[in-house]
């Protein structure tokens, strides 16, 4: 069964020269428990796809089904609730809230999903990512790599069905990048979550079950002249 399924997806924004088509995806799916990396150059719409899959953005047309829920038919409040329960998200950098300790940042991952807070799990996860002795450190007391580890722990703490990671290693050196990416894949597999990572780091692709070049997914990239600037609202 597919954890992520996208059909006839179109997404665009109004630009100075008319409607700007950013994504045109006829079909895309990720199976339950699968780990997939989408790679491609910067600015090609990879992050936008993640935002659509997490419900942060609404589609222009087409269907987006994540963990069995049609996000394109939900309003913003329902998409927020869905995201809180079912999605774990890791960004490129600056993932953490500065007024909160590492432990508190992880606990925030359980806050909005309506589940009972489980501090023991948060502590255990931080220990698993190698930060058991830094639970009460604030983000400014942690290195970038450590901050990413906290963000990863937060993304999995509520046992989401889908984990989305947007260039999670972009700000790290190659050695740290591999460590962090391995950690994400390991934790996702351990939790039985589906993992979709966006990355342009070719050296890390071997860590995933499946690798997809984003231009194969997004037709807006393969037919730029027709699709990118039609001047017509779809």
């Amino acid at each position, binding site marked *: 069964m597919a954890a992520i399924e996208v059909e006839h997806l179109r997404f665009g924004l109004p630009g100075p020269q008319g409607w700007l088509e*950013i994504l045109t995806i006829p079909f895309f799916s990720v199976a339950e428990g699968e780990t997939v990396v989408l790679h491609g150059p910067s*600015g090609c*719409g990879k*992050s*936008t796809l993640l*935002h659509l899959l*997490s419900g*942060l*953005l609404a589609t222009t047309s087409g269907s987006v089904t994540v963990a069995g829920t049609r996000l394109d038919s939900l309003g*913003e*409040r329902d998409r*927020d*609730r869905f*995201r*809180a*329960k079912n*999605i774990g*998200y890791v*960004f*490129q950098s*600056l*993932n*953490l*809230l*500065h*007024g*909160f300790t590492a432990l*508190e940042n992880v*606990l*925030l*991952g*359980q*806050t*909005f*999903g309506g589940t009972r*807070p489980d501090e023991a799990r948060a502590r255990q996860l931080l220990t698993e990512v190698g930060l058991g002795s830094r639970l009460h450190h604030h983000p400014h007391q942690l290195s970038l790599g450590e901050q990413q580890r906290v963000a990863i722990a*937060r993304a999995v703490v509520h046992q989401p069905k889908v984990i989305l990671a*947007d260039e999670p290693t972009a700000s790290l050196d190659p050695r740290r990048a591999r460590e962090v990416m391995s950690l994400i894949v390991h934790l996702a597999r351990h939790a039985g979550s589906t993992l979709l990572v966006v990355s342009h780091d070719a050296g890390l692709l071997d860590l995933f079950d499946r690798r997809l070049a984003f231009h194969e997914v997004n037709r807006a990239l393969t037919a730029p002249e027709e699709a990118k600037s039609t001047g017509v609202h779809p």
Partner: protein
Amino acid sequence: MNFFQIVWRSLRQHALSSLAAVVSLALGVALLTAVVGLRLQTHEQFTRVGLGVDAVLAPKGSPLQITLNAIYHLEEMPGKIPWALLDELRREPAVAMVVPFCTGHSFAGVRVNAIDRSFLTDFEIEPGRLLSFDPALGGAGRPFASGPAKEAVAGWEAAQRLGITLGSSFNPVCGVNLGDPVHQNDHLTFVGILARTGTPHDRAIYIPLDTFYTLGGHGDAVARMATDYASREVSGALVRMRRIRQGVMHPGVRDLKFMLAQNPVAQLVVPAEVLPGLFNIIGWVDHVLVAIAIVVVLLASLFLVVSLLNALRERRRDHALLRCLGAGRRTILGLILAESTIISMTGGILGILLGQILLHRAAILIQAESGVMLPGFRPGLPDLVIFGALLVLGLLTGLWPAFRAYRAGVLEHLRPSTL
């Protein structure tokens, strides 16, 4: 993490600006609480019907000046009235008691009031309550003797202030101003200290009225008044009216007042009518102080808006991250409103406490200056109203920053470019 823990962390993250907003609100509320409390308490205490004095028989002159002199031991009497008028007044069926007095003397800054002995023994300062020398209430000794005894009784506060003890003596000053002459040959001995009443009666020294006419240096005319009642004059007389049913003052006071208004030298002053006028005169001061306090509170609220907006600018990314974690727009709106409400609530509570402390200090000062004992520390309905108004103001103050946060987009605050 629950909602309030997030709010608390957020406040802690901007502790300095949050604290500054709390302090500025607290100062505004303290000023407002103190001014309003002082206004209510002074009005209540100063207009409390007459401290047992229903009326004052006095020379022609300012009723306010007469009231302040006869009851509050301030100011000076504008002249004298003949003793014969007192006899006339005593014959009036509506009058229960007439207590003549002569003011114009002092000792170490405390007024010395020559007064009829009945003031110490029979005068009700409240229904059923006489002046006493009860040691349990700080009193000691006894009333001064009848006739021109060289004895004196000190009010509780006067005794405290001057360290008066039973058996100590003093020489009265002929006048109430610095440098006035002292009655060098007239040693008066304290035989009593009045129990504390919490009224201006505590602030004076009392000597027998007959003794007043025997003090040296007043001249022959005054000395003759010691025995010659036909020529005797007094500064005035405290008047207590009879009571009709349920303790209501005899309505004859109005006829007496009208009758004495025709008299060429005397008048009947009713303190309960005069004192509210005092508050009308100084009412504008109240209004100005209340206006200043309200402006301070509004400025503090403006400061709160600015600090919330500044904090908002710094926290856009935090809010965006919270949205990514599943927080709805309403949660973000609620966070900001909760912050402004908590800041207002804390400022309000601290302000009311500080205001009550100010009020307490002011009550001590007012008692020292006027003898009127204010309740001082007494949080009440006005404080609740001020607190409620501040909470509403805090919510309104938070609305603008909260709606800005509510409407803010998520993605533009997460990465420079995500497309």
